[in-house]
């Protein structure tokens, strides 16, 4: 087996995100269906309240499901790319022996396990806490209590379809990544585009050239670090800002989901950044470059992109909430949305601590590995 269940278990980040997404979406989808059924039988006054609840549920399902689904898919592609890069010799040998790209890629279906595990658990837990959630929605007596119904379509939308989609996505993406000449995979020979090889004099100091080349050779990692920072910024700030519009229970859920997503994606991004550059770091250390010089040259290049991701995340969450408040909730008398500088500063401080702390911890981890080990592993 090319990709074992053990490999798919490493997708704990994707499992966690799938869990969070399904936990929220299954609860709101189920509630949406039950509220719709109740609204059909309600009088005119209650119908307006039901309509508000249906709208809220739709927005939450779209925002949470959409954001977390995209995040999980990006994480999956990132993991598959890293997996193929790490095992390109073995995969190249299989291709050399005559296995087609698609036949090899088919084995990547097992990456769907990670998603299935997360979604199934999220679905089960959502039903466990649904009574409490329903009670919170009808608190105050404006609406009658709703009975929890089991809807098979919720199971299909939140567990079966995502699992199949992710397994198919994994196979297709792996097939695309494998479609390169065998020799490139076996001999670690990279395709050299005209842009990469252009004859251009380089008078810059070595460490400056290195920083630039580290970034240009690992564009996916740059994107992922930016994305992780974006998630951290958007999810932490959005969860606090939504308090006025969605209630404390939803705010707490968004906060937990936001922090879990932010922490996991940051962890994966930083670990990948340090591991992906371990060989370069080791070689610089052998030649006598100090640890500070190494870290600045190899890992420092990612920093501006991480902070840019944070800034975009801040703007995104404010823009999205503004649109929600002005378009979706305009008829329900909710307060005007103001940009919360305090929350932004707290989120930024937490981000700095998390990002810089993770870089520091991972560099310390690399420090303990001997050059011989690093060279052998790469």
């Amino acid at each position, binding site marked *: 087996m090319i990709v074992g269940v053990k490999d798919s278990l490493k997708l704990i980040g994707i499992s966690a995100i799938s869990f969070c997404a399904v936990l929220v979406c299954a609860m709101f989808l189920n509630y949406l269906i039950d509220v719709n059924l109740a609204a059909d039988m309600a009088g005119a006054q209650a119908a307006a309240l039901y309509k508000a609840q249906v709208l809220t549920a739709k927005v939450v399902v779209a925002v949470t499901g959409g954001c977390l689904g995209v995040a999980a898919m990006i994480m999956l592609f990132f993991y598959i790319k890293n997996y193929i890069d790490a095992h390109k010799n073995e995969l190249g040998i299989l291709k050399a022996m005559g296995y087609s790209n698609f036949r090899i890629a088919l084995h990547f279906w097992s990456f769907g396990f990670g998603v299935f595990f997360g979604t199934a658990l999220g679905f089960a837990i959502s039903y466990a806490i649904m009574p409490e959630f329903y009670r919170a929605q009808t608190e105050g007596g404006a609406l009658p209590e709703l009975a929890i119904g089991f809807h098979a379509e919720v199971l299909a939308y939140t567990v079966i379809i995502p699992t199949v989609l992710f397994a198919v996505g994994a196979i297709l993406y792996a097939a695309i990544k494998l479609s390169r000449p065998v020799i490139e995979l076996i001999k670690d020979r990279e395709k050299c585009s005209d842009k990469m090889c252009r004859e251009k004099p*380089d008078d810059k100091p070595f460490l400056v050239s290195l920083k630039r080349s580290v970034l240009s050779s690992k564009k996916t990692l740059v994107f992922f670090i930016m994305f992780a920072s974006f998630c951290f910024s958007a999810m932490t700030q959005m969860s606090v800002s939504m308090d006025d519009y969605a209630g404390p229970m939803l705010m707490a859920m968004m906060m937990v989901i936001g922090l879990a997503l932010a922490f996991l994606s940051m962890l994966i991004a930083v670990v990948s950044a340090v591991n992906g550059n371990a060989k370069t770091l080791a*070689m610089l250390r052998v030649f006598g470059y100090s640890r500070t010089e190494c870290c600045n040259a190899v890992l420092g290049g990612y920093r501006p992109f991480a902070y840019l991701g944070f800034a975009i995340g801040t703007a995104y969450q404010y823009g999205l909430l503004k649109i929600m408040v002005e378009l979706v909730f305009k008829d329900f008398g909710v307060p005007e949305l103001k940009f919360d500088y305090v929350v932004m500063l707290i989120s930024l401080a937490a981000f700095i601590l998390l990002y810089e702390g993770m870089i520091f911890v991972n560099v310390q981890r690399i420090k303990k590995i001997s050059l011989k080990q690093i060279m052998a592993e790469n």
Partner: protein
Amino acid sequence: MIEIKDVVKRYGAGESCVEVLKGVSFNIEDGRFAVILGASGSGKSTLLNVASGLDKPDGGSVIYDGENISLYDDKQLTQFRKNKVGFIFQQYYLLPHLSVEQNVKLGADLAKNEDYKSIITAVGLGDKLRKRPSSLSGGEQQRVAIARALAKKPQVLFLDEPTGALDEQTGRQALDYICGLQKELGFTMIMVTHNRNIAEMADIVVCMNSGRISEIYQNQTVKSAYEIGW
């Protein structure tokens, strides 16, 4: 002068502890070419790592011009490697995304050597400055590694099986070039190899067997890379 005194190196702990170096001692005077000869698993590469400051010994000392580098902390060892030593490895370990010129600058910038291009020309790669390692042959890649090490102007050059991945002709060329430079520039050179023929090129030969020195001798006549067998 490099003095290796009773060096002990162990890997693992408890029952799985293996003593790779069991009290190794020898001296190398400045400007000499020493070969550490031994079969696979004899401890020769570990000895090179300890002698070059890449690894610390568990016992004994490594002394450069009276300074015991085994007592150095990580910062001091980095400074030591920066100022004193150069490395050439069997697998080259070039940085794949950098050009030939940039790879050589890795060493040159440390020694503030602005004349690094003459070294690239000297190793015969003057017309391949902007090429990436992946577009070069094995012999050319090893020459980049040689230029990178020499651009650093090391006082001591360590070589770990530098011809192990090269064919005979390219291997002889590489050795001839390195030895010529060593004689011209006068740096100390310590090479690890399992090839007895290469040992005939050295001033001093340190033979290793199961973590101990089995023999040390000086060659009366030193042969060139084209006079030895392969």
